[in-house]
């Protein structure tokens, strides 16, 4: 075997779409990791989440023969063919945020396992409404697998786990990561369910829009919004007291870890087998589960007291 290279890799990264702060943060985190490790990282992508454009971007990546590709998949199956082609050329493929078909990538750096995500959102909901009540979901679309999984597990937990049994799930609506649509859906949900207590959204676009809808329609104190949101987007509502808690993780660090993982794999220092541990000195140690799923698993809950500490 030839001598293993340990540095100077060429990494290419594409998010679902560029121009969205969450993904831009993951890109910056990844770039920081690459710089530290002596690699180069190129971050590019289309300006809207269209799978054919993402495939085109990946195709262009493959042509440029990088050592590693990092992506958040729009449609995990649709990108699989081009990813397989990349792997066949010896390129290491790592997904983050949203996974691709298992055969198409070497590892998936999962921000939170589906169950973790479901639990942290319910925990946030418990801060909002400790007495429980009706909850409704806003997801991006029925075709986004992680949102669908979150909703399924949350529904499950509200029936099985004592802590969460105070909640009953009454509705699910889709708003396609569109802020105005989310706003209208939130308003319509409050109309449709007069006893509604919490609106939970795993879309970082919908959660702030729901908070805004509650504030604007005079439902403050009666209905709560929660779910995943960037602290900057919901800071206002926490600070003015109209909302109590949201959840998320650190997207910058997620990107950092994803790039780190791909680098370590390239350098031969990390093999994403079940049970293997990825050691990222600045972020922590992360365990690998079945199907090369590396769980980052550091949920954050933002409240009025803590939201000021985050600058993203």
């Amino acid at each position, binding site marked *: 075997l030839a001598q293993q290279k340990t540095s100077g890799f060429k990494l290419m990264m594409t998010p679902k779409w*560029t*121009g*969205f*702060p969450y*993904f*831009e943060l993951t890109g910056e985190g990844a770039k920081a990791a690459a710089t530290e490790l002596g690699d180069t990282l190129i971050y590019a992508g289309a*300006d*809207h989440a269209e799978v054919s454009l993402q495939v085109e971007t990946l195709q262009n990546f493959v042509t440029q023969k990088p050592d590693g590709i990092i992506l958040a998949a729009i449609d995990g199956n649709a990108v699989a063919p081009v990813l397989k082609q990349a792997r066949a050329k010896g390129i290491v493929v790592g997904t983050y945020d949203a996974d691709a078909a298992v055969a198409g990538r070497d590892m998936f750096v999962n921000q939170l396992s589906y169950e973790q995500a479901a639990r942290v959102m319910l925990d946030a909901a418990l801060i909002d409404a400790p007495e429980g009540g009706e909850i409704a979901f806003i997801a991006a*679309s*029925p075709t986004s697998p992680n949102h669908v999984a979150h909703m399924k597990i949350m529904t499950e937990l509200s029936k099985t786990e004592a802590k969460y049994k105070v909640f009953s799930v009454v*509705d699910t*609506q*889709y708003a396609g990561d*569109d*802020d*105005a649509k989310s*706003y*209208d*859906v939130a*308003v*319509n*949900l*409050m*109309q*449709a369910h*007069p006893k509604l207590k919490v609106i939970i959204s795993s879309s970082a*676009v919908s959660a*702030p*829009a729901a908070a*805004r809808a509650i*504030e*604007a*329609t*005079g439902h403050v104190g009666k209905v709560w919004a929660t779910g995943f949101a*960037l602290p*900057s*987007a919901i*800071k*206002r*509502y926490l*600070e003015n007291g109209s909302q109590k808690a949201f959840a998320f993780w650190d997207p910058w660090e997620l990107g950092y870890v994803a790039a780190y993982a791909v680098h370590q794999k390239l350098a031969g220092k990390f093999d994403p087998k079940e049970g293997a541990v990825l050691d990222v000195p600045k972020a922590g140690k992360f365990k690998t589960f079945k199907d090369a799923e590396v769980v980052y698993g550091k949920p954050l809950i933002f409240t009025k007291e803590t939201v000021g500490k985050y600058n993203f």
Partner: protein
Amino acid sequence: MSEAPSVAARPGSRNLVEVVLRLREAGVVVFLVVLGLAFGLATDRFLSVQNLTTVASSAAILAIAACAQAIVLITRNLDVSVGSMMGLVAYLTADWAATHPGITPVEVVAIPLMIGTVLGAINGLLVAYGRVPALIATLGTMSLYRGFTYIYAHGQEVTSSRLPPWMLSSVDARIGGLPILILVSIAIVAVVAWLLHAYPFGRRLYAVGSNGVAAWFFGLRAERVVFFAYVACGFLCGIAGLLYAARVGTVTVVLANGWEMSSLASAVIGGVSVSGGSGTVVGAALGAVVLATIDNGLVLLRVPEFWRMFIQGAAIVAAVAVDALIAEAIRRSTGGRRR
């Protein structure tokens, strides 16, 4: 020497045309009432004052955008950059407000209106003076404006905490129990309707769209009329963009994406003919209310999301078909020939 008797031989046709033309908006209202009653029977949550207020608020901004679209449609043109104009206006305004903490309400209103007007004028130049077909010209500016928004934003969004608090609270305010947004929207639609109805400029819009050749015979400057229609459209998109930003709170680069189609759909449902010359902005605004009612009713009825898309599409086709029936009646009554 035969016209008088031959017309007398087809009585009724002219009356039908007039009745239909006059009742076009009334027809939309009737449709709306029927829709409302249907939803009301299906779910008792629909016909509450509160829910109807909700529907009206949801429709409020779209109504303004539809109004903008209608002005251009009346001149027998089209603007598919409506959403992009709103997005660019909203982003630039929000960004300005976020970076200039001392900003006054006057500036917050003036900036988007100015930007909107300029964007509309660019469209107007291309279509009226550059003689570029409206669809193509505005498809181009649709990507140009949106692309510019992205490039300017650099992956940032303007979050609600960065906006002056009064900007958000002022759209939440209520007067006499009605959200101010609804009142503003009604006021704008009413003013525009009045301008189009009562002012020579408004009448020229209809004239140019009704019969371009006749407009030429009458000595109207069609270019100028079309240009100003686009300027007015941009101006209204400025208002709509500002209200949108204040309503949702978080201003992203994709703001109002796809609104070109919703505004077009509202106008068409509201009886504004894509062949020009007929329809009113009130109709277009009512069309927006129809769309919002469908949205709201289907959520209340828990109809799956996908049916909404289908029902809205079908509603558009139905509205166009009704329009064609009217046009056919006009054709028959004027003795115009078929192909």
